[in-house]
């Protein structure tokens, strides 16, 4: 389904859309307050960009270095070309130790690979332990935001879900009570887990370690209690040295929520006593994206979510309208790289206002890339009939000034004279939820010339 159709579904609940819009704008606002307190913020962003660009230009070398160091640290390293292989690898690790109960902290990569349904089909229980992800999991939905997975749900919905699945008392959506109950429920799961899966925020080539950031402490609760820890990462998560964490940890949380750092920034390097540690390194389309000069910078992304919070379209269309693991502006430049036809409407889900590029901590030129995808999509994928015809007609009109003048006069007359039912008839999607203005009598051109003439007469 196209982005606009899916957005239409989200837009049915107007009150919710309003709340969603304001809540995310508030997060953007907190980001602003936080970054304005940092001296040299722009330099920090430049560094973030520069370190990532350098790393991509040396990616194979750093990955090999990372692998060699991780092996020395006693960690097993696996490579997966795509999502299926990733899932098979994770499953085989679990199967080898007969692990049946898995706790998982936030990992957009495992979402991207559809790991949960795969493991469940193989009789393995997977519990998402980030509260937002647990809510979404109980609701049998997908995260709608990469940092705030359940931002599309209101507290009454959570209340109902917990009553049904966790046996809680009705509480009118009291967040304190509901969080407390989730804590108890998840504690049980942590204590009895056979394995923990985590994502990776940054993997360090020079020492084979990796960093995981959370506010809840769920990644550590899982990874330290279970006898197996599997960390899953995309190839682009690598950074050359530990000192680069100084840049990225300063950028990440401030851009995400306005916090100066997440509550927990865990640096895993060697397995703890009695724990087997595995790292799965995944390509799944990333090497392809690296081959596209116009779009490779999308691999700089550190998944802070700032571009979503600021996006006027995302805030009003909801994360699910992008029908992809990574929604919002960054998702709209990543997804077409994976499937141009399926995601052909996403680069159009933008006003090209550029706010995403302004807030991006690693300076990805998101809105420029959106524009570039549009050029490619216009050429390579079939466009809706009306859009194609109207664009062709507009092209002709704009290229001939005399024709433009004539059509303009007719349009102004039509907007003044014709009934709304005709103006907003079905081919005019714009008119579905808006009214066009009343047509002015004069064109801008006419008005301007008259004004100039009047000036001259005045001067005489």
């Amino acid at each position, binding site marked *: 389904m196209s982005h606009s159709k899916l957005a239409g579904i989200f837009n049915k609940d107007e009150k919710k859309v309003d709340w969603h819009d304001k809540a995310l704008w*508030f997060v953007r606002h907190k980001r602003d307050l936080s970054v304005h307190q940092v*001296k*040299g913020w722009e*330099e920090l962003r*430049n*560094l973030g960009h520069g*370190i990532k*660009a350098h790393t991509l*230009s040396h990616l*194979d070398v750093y*990955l*090999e270095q990372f692998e060699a160091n991780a092996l020395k640290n006693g960690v097993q390293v696996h*490579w997966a*070309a795509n999502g299926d*292989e990733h899932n098979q690898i994770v499953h085989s690790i679990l199967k080898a130790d007969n692990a049946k109960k898995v706790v998982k902290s936030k990992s957009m990569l495992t979402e991207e690979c559809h790991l949960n349904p795969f493991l469940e089909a193989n009789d393995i229980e997977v519990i998402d332990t980030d*509260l*937002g992800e647990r809510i979404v999991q109980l609701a049998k939905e997908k995260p709608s935001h990469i940092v*705030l*997975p*359940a*931002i599309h749900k*209101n507290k009454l919905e*959570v209340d109902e879900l917990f009553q049904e699945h966790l046996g809680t008392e009705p509480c009118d*959506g009291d967040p304190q009570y*509901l*969080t407390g109950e989730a*804590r108890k429920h*998840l*504690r049980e799961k942590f*204590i009895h887990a056979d394995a923990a899966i985590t994502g990776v925020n940054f993997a*360090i080539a*020079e020492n084979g370690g990796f960093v995981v950031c959370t*506010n*809840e*402490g*769920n990644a*550590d*609760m899982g990874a*330290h*209690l279970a006898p197996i820890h599997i960390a899953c990462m995309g*190839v682009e998560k690598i950074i050359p040295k*530990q*000192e*680069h*964490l*100084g840049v990225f940890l*300063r950028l990440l949380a401030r851009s995400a929520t306005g*916090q*100066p*750092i997440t*509550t*927990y*920034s*865990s640096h895993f*390097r060697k397995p*703890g006593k009695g724990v087997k540690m595995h790292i799965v*390194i995944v390509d799944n389309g990333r090497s*392809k994206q*690296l*081959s596209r000069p116009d779009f490779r910078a999308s691999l700089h992304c550190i998944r802070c979510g700032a571009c979503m919070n600021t996006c006027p379209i995302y805030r009003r269309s909801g994360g699910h309208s992008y029908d992809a693991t990574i929604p919002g502006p960054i998702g709209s430049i990543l997804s077409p790289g994976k499937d141009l036809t399926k995601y052909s409407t996403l680069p159009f889900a933008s006003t090209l206002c550029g706010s995403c590029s302004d807030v991006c901590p690693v300076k990805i030129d998101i809105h420029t890339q959106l524009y570039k995808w549009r050029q490619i999509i216009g050429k390579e994928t079939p466009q809706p009939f009306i859009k194609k015809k109207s664009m062709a007609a507009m092209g002709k009109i704009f290229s001939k000034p005399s024709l433009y003048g004539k059509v303009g006069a007719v349009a102004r007359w039509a907007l003044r004279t014709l009934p709304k039912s005709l103006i907003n008839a079905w081919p005019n999607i714009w008119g579905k939820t808006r009214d066009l203005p009343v047509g002015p009598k004069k064109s801008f051109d006419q008005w301007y010339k008259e004004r100039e003439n009047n000036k001259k007469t005045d001067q005489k």
Partner: protein
Amino acid sequence: MDSRDTILKKLKANKPEFIALPKINPAVFDENIDKVKEFIRKTEVAGGKVFEVTDNKEVLSKTQEAFPETKVNFSNLDDSGFFNTIDSESFKNPHELNDLDVLVLESTLGVAENGAVWLTDNDIPVRVIPFITKHLVLVLPKENIVPYMHQAYSAINPMDLDYGIFISGPSKTADIEQSLVIGAQGAMSLTVFLK
């Protein structure tokens, strides 16, 4: 060819021409902040409490004052015998630490700009313990507070680290309608004693 080689080969073929690695110059970010003041401010914003004390004895007495009714306590400060209700035997099965009420640990590094306190395997008897405890108490010498993350990483030897963690404030979440709730899956409170 297995996936490892295929992936590496593709990355090598598809990567752009070499781009130089920029150098980090921490002086660019330096604002000459009052490190202790900033550390206290940021810890409090993150939901933690900070007290200034003279020695470890005061830490333990203040901790007892703050958490008078607790049953299971552990501190790895020297002379904590009177405070501790469990010993290192209990760490053999960390799953049983679920009823730990108060944990006191000593740190050697803190960061002013974000209130983060650094702990490594050297400071933690068993990795899960700062997360599984209900209340976490950390002791930090004032002179070990550095201004920014850049200085913090200069103080950490990457080759000599098995596991390390920055902790800033208590565990928290805002996943239900963006309302901040303290005490998600990790510790429900954080107290830092500066000495």
